[in-house]
């Protein structure tokens, strides 16, 4: 069973096409194992991405070093997953 302990979901806000290009580059880096929930499209729309714990530091440094604004949408994905599982079990009972 795959767990998501320490995975965070970031909401990234880009200001211009240049920053979007940086995010599209990030998307090509397979080793980071990023899961884009909202892909980079236009600066008007946010980008949401799930980041495994092992890639968090690298991604945040990348964003900060390019002056790209982000906020944390989900602090720890596994916490929400556990809650969902409890809800299902409780409902079945």
């Amino acid at each position, binding site marked *: *069973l*795959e767990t*998501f302990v320490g995975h965070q*979901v970031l*909401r990234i806000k880009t200001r211009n096409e240049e920053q979007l290009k940086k995010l599209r580059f990030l998307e090509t880096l*397979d080793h980071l194992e990023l*899961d*884009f*929930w*909202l*892909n*980079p*499209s*236009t600066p008007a*729309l*946010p980008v*949401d991405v*799930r980041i495994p714990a092992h890639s968090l530091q690298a991604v945040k440094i990348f964003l900060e070093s390019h002056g790209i604004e982000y906020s944390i*949408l*989900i602090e720890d*994905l596994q916490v*929400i*997953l556990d*809650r*969902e599982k409890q*809800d*299902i079990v409780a*409902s*079945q009972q």
Partner: protein
Amino acid sequence: MERSSSTFNYGTYHSLASIYQELDNLASEYGNIVSKIQIGESYEKRPLYVLKFSTGRGNRPAIWLDAGIHSREWVTQASAMWIAKKIASDYGNDPSITSLLNNLDIFLLPVANPDGYEFTHTTNRMWRKTRSKNSGSLCIGVDPNRNWDAGFGGPGASSNPCSDSYHGPRANSEVEVKSVVDFIKNHGNIQAFLTLHSYSQLLMYPYGYKCTPPADNAELNTIGKAAANSIRSLYGTTYTVGSICSTIYQASGGSIDWSYDYGIKYSFAFELRDTGRYGFLLPAAQIIPTAEETWLGLKTIMEYVRDNPY
């Protein structure tokens, strides 16, 4: 205990087995208008079931509605089940539903990607793709909403089998996609193609594989806005309406682009309620409110389809 659709809890998430059991219950309880049809089987040999809502014989004009092609978007499968019960139980009681079903059929595929759905329950809650093997790669699965024969392999789809938006080796390579395509072609009289996704509260029409507006842009936009107003009327949930390309991003190989180019004018994709706070883990307490408001939007489109045949 014998189960029936009156004991099924529509306000919680269910396993595939439980959903499939409920399809039988609905078909049995509302046998006069509901029947279960198998339109194919998934890569891992799970049946693909469609509920047919019909009050007449023959090949009447019909509306297609599917949910759960992206398996982790659980609120869509759950909403589809609530909607199935709503259609069945309102026939004969609600004049709008009664009139709808007296004029056309509805086909509802509540779990368009059963392998993926099972995988989200057992192994990886965040799984989105099918579970087909990709030759030459260790990575599994194809994004079934990049696999339709509409600008296949173009912008907004990945050629990397490890990507969550991998388009697959060729259009219709996924049996889940091919089964729907074959069903719709064989039917020959589908007037509307509606598909449920979830995450960012959008109501979209073609195109996604290109950024030029469709021939029916103005009409689709008007219908979409009317549907979005209906959705908002219940709990104030706001939807953005527009073409896939203009509202989100270019994405090729999507289902409604295929259906529109195939000749099904009323082709829409819904992205159901989700504030972004929960991702694909919308709390179960929000299933019924989501389904209720979605149904209002769907009903607006369905009534338009009924009143404006082409």
